[in-house]
């Protein structure tokens, strides 16, 4: 894909379902995605209200799941507006590091 059309596909609002860039979970994880820390979230909804494509980010944060909505344009608005620092940007490399650290315990 030409560089220009790739960026256009990222930033153009989808006009129909078939226009949506369909990315697999792996591709999304590699590009990077918004990941919540559920223990910080107070469900205030500031994130979803500021999402330009209307993703209910709060519901993801509530379940502690990464925002893997295929319409996410990766603008990072939700991360910036969250008053509690619940959301962070995570690429696959980063998530591998975090998983290794958190999931495998402290090994004290």
């Amino acid at each position, binding site marked *: 894909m030409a560089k220009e059309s790739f960026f256009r596909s990222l930033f153009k609002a989808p006009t129909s379902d078939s226009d949506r860039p369909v990315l697999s979970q792996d591709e999304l994880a590699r590009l990077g995605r918004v990941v919540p*820390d559920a*223990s*910080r979230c*107070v*469900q*205030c*909804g*500031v994130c*979803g*209200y500021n999402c330009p494509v209307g993703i209910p980010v*709060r519901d993801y944060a*509530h379940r502690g799941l990464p925002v893997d909505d295929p319409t996410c344009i990766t603008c990072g608005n939700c991360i910036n*507006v969250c*008053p*509690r*620092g619940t959301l962070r940007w995570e690429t696959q490399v980063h998530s591998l590091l975090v998983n*290794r*650290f958190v999931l*495998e315990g*402290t*090994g*004290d």
Partner: protein
Amino acid sequence: MQPLRYLIIGNGAAGVTAAETIRQHDPFGDVTIVSAEPYPMYSRPGLAYLFINEIPRRQVFARQPEWYQQMRLNLLFGTAVSLNVDRQEVRLKDGRILPYDRLLIATGARAVPPPYPGADLKGVHYLDTLDGTKALMKQAKRRRRAIVIGGGITALEMTEGLAHHGVDTHYFLRRDRLWGKVFNDTEAKILEERMRHHGVAIHYNTEVAEILGDRRGRVRAVRLKTGEEFKCNIVGVAIGVRPLLDLIQNTPIQTDRAILVDQTMQSNVRGVYAAGDCAQVYDSWTKQHMLDILWPSAVAEGHAAALNMVGEKHEYEKGSPFNACLLFGLHITTMGQINPRRNGDADEAEILQFLSRGSSEVWYTYPRHYASAWSEDGANTVRLVMDGDYLVGALLVGDQSTADPLRYIIENRINFREVHPDFSIGGQALKKNIQQFWIGLNQKQQAVKVSSKQ
């Protein structure tokens, strides 16, 4: 077998989390939630953001009515007035009687009215419920003069909101420092400066003796302890909250300041559980039953209670109380034991009579072997509180880059001295030391992982 009847009194963070957890573990149980307010669950911390117009009113609802249907939860609107633990039933104000097999009390807490005459005048407001916030916003639109009393996060959120609406806002402090039991002088000054920048006038050592009304029962002024009168139309009150315990009066359920529960969230009466603001939970940090008025604690407690209610053995381990907030554009994170002074003010007991929303009793405690480290860099500060070799509390203002590592270190009780002996020195290098410690911890754990595989 008959499906179990679960009854949950309270439609807040603890109650709704519990209902959801019960449904996940018991698909056939009959789950009923009783809500005293005529709304689906809304975010109480979100009220502050509603007040400063960050979000519209519809956005404050964290669950829609359809969600309750999808999860097959019965949502009843009504006030529970009495409980009969022998017959296992709860009576609502409108006369309905609800029998149960497992009961969860998650009624929460409500703002305490000011302890002087005039508390019932029109113009005395709380940032505590959705209806209260609506009324306050309506008043604030008329752009007049307001005073705010109270020493916690809610009071500060209220001043921020009032100033945002263009109201001439005056913040009354009983002492000479903002949030004296949590902040030290520098932390308080940073925030005070921000407040002034937003147009809030701060009055030190000022106490109200009486709220004065006009002939139509509206606030016209407050009389100070010095005898002076101070004209205002709005009195914002956030001096703390009191757990709602009306339901369990005349029952054998044990209480202290709230319902005492063991580590399974069960009260002394079998089958009756409590969670959230109205529960007093055993805290392994201070080895006492402690009160938290925090959203994440309420969620964790509701989850733990639900697991035990469906019959799974689950011991709740109360984590280090944590709160992150945004006040006047400044990020502040508070965790663990952070009281900067061993010997507080003489009227400490009075000040601490009620806990304010968004805080924990644990914060005000003082570790046995107190040591602290401190770093300040403009409007960014890091303060660490240590008990021996362990970190027990931290307070960050501004830069939050070390918040998550610190939280991890506190909650997992990691001895930091063996990794970085200079951790407690403080000063400009503190942030760097924390980062180095974090990297070191990562490497050490990786090494452990590798050696355990061999």
